[in-house]
Structures are given as structure tokens and as C-alpha cells.
């Protein structure tokens, strides 16, 4: 195999050709400012509204409830900071989990420094929130619950409908970061009682730097960017028309092919998980076996370190990612892996494989073969493995 095998779709996806083609005219002949009065710019306004409808449809919302943003990070920031401020007369307590994306966690930490109180719910060993823990954490002063729909590292999908029902019964607003979920698992904001939801374009074969925040009708949410009257005055600034058009196209394509594509990827994922666990000793699957994204597999290989593993995979033209400390630049292993209770040294040897539309079974076989060789090689170099083997030999004697 001599072409690159991209297995990091949770990091980002390639923009689809159809998406790029839909975008292109909006850079050149259709460049007009959507707020201008003349006819040719007015068409751009229509293009934006068409995209808004497509995004709304994907999650069962009304188009008036969709606001375009610069991506998942901004949507998370806006939802949390906005609600915190708009509802501060009601209370100052927010509930989230220990395994959220940094876009949520760091925003919550910022609020903690500014007089808010945040409860970080622990998750079980598979990364799931216990709905009873949520029930117990809700207080008089709770104004927002923010729990991600699917985790970007271990792929665990939360019981969102159950959590949403609890939030609704308690009269507390419910935000979910669905950046990894949209286009992979069915979402309906009404059935799931979701009040705010974050989406990102580049995780579903759309362009980078574009996303949306769904805000249920009737919710007070302060403006995030002050400026012109765009996005109903809630987010000023001339719209990124090409990106919005591309985002709309991408989400439409993702939803159309979701069922077939999710099933196909889930089959590949299951094959990969089964083979890796069978063929490589001292290895575990992270995240829930069943409640997980169809395109995610996350393994820990004992006695080896993730960055070395990634470089060796790269040498075999395989692109993947790891939650190891050495790759993060912060020296701490992933908070998600620690959050599901993995000890440091096991979290260190983690590998995230996230599949996409182009991946094939042949590529899985190549990956499995490569992993067997690389893991054995790194173990041969590992003092931890040496100690383990010596200890086993002593026990056998």
C-alpha cells in the first residue's frame, strides 16, 4: 500500500468536492455582501437562509433557531458564557462533565474565576454519565447543564434523551456539544429536550472555521459579537458566505448518507476492534463497547507510549492520534482517559482511530498488521515490558 491512510476524522475531515464546488461561486462572481440592497447581493442572503434550513433540518430544529458561528469552539463558548450572563439573576451554578472538550472545560473554568460555581460530573469506566448523578447535582441555583453528545476521544455516546428529560423536568437549560455526533448519529432536539446545541462544519466534510449554535426559541441569549445586524444582531460581522454555503451542502450530504455510511463504518470499526483485541496482547478498548460513535475506536497498549506509536504509524503512511502526554505538549495525558479511570502509564499508550467515508476493509487489515509489528517493536524497547516479562518468568519458576 503506498497511499496515505487517513484515520483521524475526529480531528478533521477532507472537504468534499461537491462542497467545494458549491462554495466556489461565492468567492468570485457571487461575492456581494449579503446585507447590500442590490439584487445580486440579495441572492447571497437567500443562499445563507437555504443553508440555515439545511442545518435546522439535520437536527429537527426550526431555521429561526440556527445561528452561524466560526465553529464548534465558538458555539460552546457562546452557549455557556451567554447563558451564564443572561440567567445570572436566576443562579450561578453550571453542571458539566470531566470529559468535555476543552472548548467547554476552559470556558467553565473561566466562569469559575468569575463567581460561578461548576459541578464536573464524573463518568463511569466506559465514559458514560449516570443520569442519577445529574439529578442529584441539580440545585436551586443551577442555570445550565452542558453535556457532550459524543466524546471526541473515546467515542462514547451519552444517554442524551434521558439527560435532557431530567434537565427539562428540573426547569434547567440543557446544552450539548454535538460536534462529533452530527452526521453520525440521529439527533432530534425536540425529542431529546436539547435547548442549545453546538455543531462544527469541518467534522462533517465541510469547510473549517464555520459552525452553528442551535438556540431553542424563547431562550434569552446575549449577543456574542457586537456589530452589525447579522444573525438577528446576536452575532455581528459580514457572513462567511462561501463557508456557510459549504456547511449547508456538507450537512445535507451527511444526513442523506448517514444511515448507510454509519452502518458501514460501524462494521469496519467492529472488525478492527475485534481483530486488535484478539491479535495484540495487553491491549484494551477505551470507551463504551456499544454506545459509541460508529467511526471511533480507541485502544490502550500497555508498556508503550503513544507518540512513538504515532510516529511509527506515520512511517507506514497511517495518520492517527493519541491521548498520550508526549503528544499534548502539556506533559499530562488526556483528561478523558484519566476521567475514565485509566492510570497514567496506560493512558500514555493510547491510540485513537477515527474512520471516514473513504476507509476500506483492506486499510483495516493493513492497520492491524502494522500495529502488530509496531507494538511488538516498541515493547522490545520498553523497560516496563522488560520488568513485566522478568516478573512473569519469576512467577512461573
Amino acid at each position, binding site marked *: 500500500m503506498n497511499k496515505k491512510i487517513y484515520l483521524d476524522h475526529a480531528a478533521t475531515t477532507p472537504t468534499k468536492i461537491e462542497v467545494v464546488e458549491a462554495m466556489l461561486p461565492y468567492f468570485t462572481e457571487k461575492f456581494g455582501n449579503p446585507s447590500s440592497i442590490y439584487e445580486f447581493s440579495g441572492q447571497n442572503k437567500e443562499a445563507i437562509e437555504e443553508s440555515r434550513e439545511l442545518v435546522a433540518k439535520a437536527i429537527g430544529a426550526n431555521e429561526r433557531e440556527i445561528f452561524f458561528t466560526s465553529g464548534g469552539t465558538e458555539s460552546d463558548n457562546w452557549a455557556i458564557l451567554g447563558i451564564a450572563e443572561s440567567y445570572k439573576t436566576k443562579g450561578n451554578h453550571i453542571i458539566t462533565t470531566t470529559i468535555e472538550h476543552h472548548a467547554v472545560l476552559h470556558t467553565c473554568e473561566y466562569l469559575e474565576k468569575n463567581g460561578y460555581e461548576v459541578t464536573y460530573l464524573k463518568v463511569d469506566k466506559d465514559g458514560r454519565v449516570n443520569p442519577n448523578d445529574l439529578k442529584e447535582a441539580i440545585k436551586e441555583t443551577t442555570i445550565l447543564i452542558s453535556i457532550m453528545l459524543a466524546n471526541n476521544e473515546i467515542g462514547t455516546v451519552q444517554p442524551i434523551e434521558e439527560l435532557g428529560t431530567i434537565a427539562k423536568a428540573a426547569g434547567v437549560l440543557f446544552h450539548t456539544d454535538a460536534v462529533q455526533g452530527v452526521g453520525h448519529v440521529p439527533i432530534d432536539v425536540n425529542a431529546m429536550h436539547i435547548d442549545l446545541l453546538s455543531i462544527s462544519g469541518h467534522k462533517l466534510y465541510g469547510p473549517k472555521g464555520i459552525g452553528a449554535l442551535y438556540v431553542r426559541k424563547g431562550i434569552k441569549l446575549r449577543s456574542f459579537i457586537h456589530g452589525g445586524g447579522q444573525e438577528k444582531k446576536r452575532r455581528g460581522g459580514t457572513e462567511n458566505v462561501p463557508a456557510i454555503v459549504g456547511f449547508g451542502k456538507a450537512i445535507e450530504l451527511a444526513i442523506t448518507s448517514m444511515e448507510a455510511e454509519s452502518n458501514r463504518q460501524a462494521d469496519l470499526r467492529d472488525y478492527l476492534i475485534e481483530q486488535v483485541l484478539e491479535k495484540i496482547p495487553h491491549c484494551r478498548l477505551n470507551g463504551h463497547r456499544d454506545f459509541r460513535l460508529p467511526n471511533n475506536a480507541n485502544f490502550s497498549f500497555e*508498556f*508503550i*507510549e503513544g*507518540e*512513538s506509536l504515532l*510516529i511509527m504509524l506515520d*512511517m507506514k503512511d497511517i495518520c492517527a492520534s493519541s491521548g*498520550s*502526554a*508526549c*503528544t499534548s*505538549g502539556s*506533559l*499530562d*495525558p488526556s483528561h478523558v482517559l484519566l476521567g475514565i479511570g485509566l492510570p*497514567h*502509564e496506560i493512558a*500514555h499508550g493510547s491510540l485513537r482511530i477515527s474512520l471516514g467515508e473513504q476507509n476500506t476493509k483492506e486499510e483495516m487489515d493493513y492497520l492491524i498488521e502494522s500495529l502488530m509489528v509496531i507494538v511488538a517493536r516498541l515493547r*522490545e*524497547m*520498553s*523497560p*516496563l*515490558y*522488560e*520488568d513485566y516479562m522478568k516478573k512473569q518468568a519469576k*512467577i512461573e519458576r
Partner: protein
Amino acid sequence: MYTKKVMDHFQNPRNMGEIEHASGVGTVGNAKCGDIMRIYLDIEDDIIKDVKFKTFGCGAAVATSSMATELVKGKTVKEAMEVTNKAVMEALDGLPRAKVHCSLLAEEALQAALWDYAKKNGIVIEGLEEPKPFEEHEEEEEEF
């Protein structure tokens, strides 16, 4: 992100392995990132005849341990004392800033192995300090 030399030492590590009945063995770990390095020395008449390493760590950790072993092989104990993390980094044409601590690990492992050698032979190596104790993640020995 890594230089050609680092990648070369990562892909083709020199002196990887272990030495049975080594004159000195040193194991050190970075408590923060959790990486672990072990160096074995075979010393005869004050000359480092052979040296091997094992590393659980990132690409830079593997490359620095490989380079450190190469720099001390065939040298006297005194010369080996001059192989600092700076020397290793220079020999590798540099490391990214976040990876400087990995090269420190190589220096510490080397010195820990020299300390072990000195202790076993009742000699004093000028300028050598006792290494920080390394905490092994030893579980209790099972009872049978």
C-alpha cells in the same frame, strides 16, 4: 517537528537492548510525563566497553537515549561524565522546546548507571551525584 537526526535515531536506534550482568544499570523517570529510561553499562578498566538502553517514551526520548549511548561507547568514565543533555541535544541538531526534558532524562539515566557502577565497585566518580530515587510501580509480590 523533529530534525533528520532525531528521526534517524528514532527509526534506527543504536544500542537498544539490555546487558546481562552489567557493571551498572540506571533507571530514571520523568514523574510528570511518565516516561522511563534505562541504561546498562559494561565497564572494563575504566572504559565503557558496551552500553545498551531501553526507553518507554516519546520520539525524542528514544532518540536522546540512542544518541547518549552512542556518545559514551568506547569512552572513559570521565569522558562519559561530560555527556550532558546539552551535548546530546547538539548531537541531534536540536529538539523542540517542549522536548528538552526528554534529553535530561538521557543524562540522568546515564549518570544513574554510572552511580550504580561506582557503588558496586566502591569507587568515587568526580562530580557524580546520587540520582534521585526512581519509584518503580511495583505491585505486591503475589503469595503462592
